[in-house]
């Protein structure tokens, strides 16, 4: 089993087919929708975690492409150098998905990696420069 994070881009008239249904039903993929911004007659965006076998993921993505939906696999991730963090919270001001949030008891920063959209806003917003964008190959 493998898990990847993908952004799919829908053209304004591509909402007629239940794409996620087919990915689940026909390719046995587990989808976790992290972010969705889709409305009628507008270019839409869907960010999902996809879990499945390598083969099913590949075939599922081929199907997506075949249906004319562009996609991009996340090949980067955010690395938090926790030991150098002062837990000020400046990054939480810009994090769009709530992946970075303050614990309301300890007032420590918590990083929910599953929710991270790898948008990179926290990298610039962190005054201590403890957030970095790294290639997945180079490891976390």
């Amino acid at each position: 089993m493998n898990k990847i994070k993908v952004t799919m881009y829908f053209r304004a008239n591509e909402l007629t087919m239940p794409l996620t249904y087919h990915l689940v039903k026909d390719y046995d993929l587990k989808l976790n929708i992290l972010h969705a911004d889709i409305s009628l007659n507008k270019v839409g965006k869907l960010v999902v975690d996809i879990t499945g076998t390598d083969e099913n993921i590949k075939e599922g993505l081929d199907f997506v492409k075949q249906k004319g939906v562009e996609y991009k696999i996340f090949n980067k991730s955010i690395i938090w150098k926790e030991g150098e963090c002062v837990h000020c919270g400046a990054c939480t001001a810009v994090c769009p998905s709530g992946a970075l949030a303050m614990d309301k008891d300890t007032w420590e920063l918590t990083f929910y990696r599953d929710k991270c959209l790898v948008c990179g806003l926290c990298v610039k917003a962190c005054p201590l420069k403890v957030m970095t964008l790294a290639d997945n190959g180079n490891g976390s």
Partner: protein
Amino acid sequence: MGYKSFDEINEKIKKGKAVVVTAEEVINITKEKGVKKAAEEIDVVTTGTFGPMCSSGVFINFGHSEPPIKMNRIWLNDVPAYAGIAAVDAYLGATEMSDSKGMEYGGAHVIEDLVSDRDIRLYAESYGTDCYPRKEISTIINRNNVNQIYMYNPRNAYQNYPAATNMSDRIIYTYMGTLLPKGANITYSTSGELSPLLNDPEYRTIGIGTRVFIGGTQGYVAWEGTQHNPGQKRGENKVPVSLAGTLALVGDLRGMNQRFVRAAVYEKYGVSLFVGIGIPIPILDEDILIKTAIKNSDIYTDIFDKSGNEGVVGKVSYEQLRSGFVEMNGRKIPTAPLSSLKTAREIAGILKQQIERGEFLISQPVQTLPMNNNINKLDVRP
């Protein structure tokens, strides 16, 4: 209750018998025991804050070289320092930027490096004089081999600071962090009910000469801070409702700890320095205790539009800011802190421990801070 004096409290501290609590702990203790009993029992309340404070820096006396130099331009790791004082005296400000790296590395980074015992490249130039013939020097310094090095911060520990938002249509980058368009987020910088000057709103015990925790060591209040504005409007509890008092602080850099002195860079704004500050408040009488028992729900501040368009766009309590959301015009706007409450608590806790162990004595101000000066604006004249 009987009035306690600074000396009486210090006698208890020296004997290891002082009752010390933090400015968060005092809230419940006062609620449970009542003002009278709590004021009798508690000797000292400790405060803490750890946020970005731009108006910070260090004075260095490098010591004289052989042959000597009257340094008139100075760089430390390529960051310019002010040299317009005596021959080998300099002031390095936290927000100064590197000539080669810009805002990626600034005075604050040099200061953090010095506190971390790292070596720093000193380069200085001079025009040469009869008594100071050397015209150039390049050498390595650190906090141990210079003659003297101490932090002198013209403005720290702001008493109340407005929260920030951005009502414009574009993202803006400020010293209050990254502010999203159309009022989509609010940032705030305070330790609130734990903050030094919010616990002594009328400066009854914090004044010139007050011994403080600064950057991990013991330092002092040197003067009122720049932009000290005690005339700010105050609530019934005497707590200012926006920008008010400030402190100028001084402390020996050699005793400081990197945990409490950290360089910061705000995107497209510049460099600043997180400074850890803790101030003990002796409970001399009931009024002082009542003031230290203040809660976030009793402290209000402005929400300020940092795009410069709309000025003050709201009023909010620190409790609301801490809740994570503020209601504005029927919308729930997410809030984010910029100063570390976690570290502020740690500082108040360390200070509490030091006083309990008799390692930190309180001091009576030699002069109280002014209570009624106001801020002058800078006129622009032709």
